[in-house]
């Protein structure tokens, strides 16, 4: 999460200098956790984008078919798993090329 994009006026009014060391540490931990959660959320958005294109065929959406059918649902789940497998392959290959 890009904390720099948080509006400065809303955070700038707060006096953080008076926070105890313990509070500062707690805040730091909190920010780290929230950043990770935001990264995960962003990944989920990106994955849904990619997998929706692959798994839900292009063209007009059928009327009233709001749920994923018995082909689309497993496709979405496989898509997530295969994408992460592929991610691992990429990292592994890059590491190999580095050495």
């Amino acid at each position: 999460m890009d904390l720099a994009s948080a509006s400065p006026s809303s955070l700038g009014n707060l006096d953080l200098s008076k926070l105890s060391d313990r509070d500062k540490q707690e805040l730091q931990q909190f920010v780290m956790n929230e950043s990770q959660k935001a990264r995960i959320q962003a990944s989920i958005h990106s994955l849904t984008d990619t997998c929706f294109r692959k798994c839900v065929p292009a063209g007009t959406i059928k009327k009233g078919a709001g749920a994923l059918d018995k082909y689309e649902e497993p496709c979405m789940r496989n898509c997530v798993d295969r994408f992460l497998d592929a991610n691992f392959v990429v990292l592994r290959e890059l590491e190999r090329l580095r050495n």
Partner: protein
Amino acid sequence: TYGKMDGLGASGMSAFSSDPKTQVMRQIQQEAAMQNARMLVEKLNEHCFERCVPKPGSSLSSGEESCFTTCMEKYMTAWNTVSKQYVARIQKESQQGGSGGSSF
């Protein structure tokens, strides 16, 4: 429907605290929630416009509008499926010691 999708939120902070620390924490969570909502709206619009409005006319027909409703439902169901699968996968990999070293 946003509540259904927010599997990663909710810290359970007291609603009455107004000390600087809690204010910052709440602010950060709000920013994250807004960012999440922005991304969702962007993707919904993109996907459903592509599918439901193949040839833009002078207005949106009622058929196109109901296509949007169905499309949005479908996309959000897909989002939930991906979210569950993804989180389950990360948890599994972190339990296995992450020897794969994927960076999430």
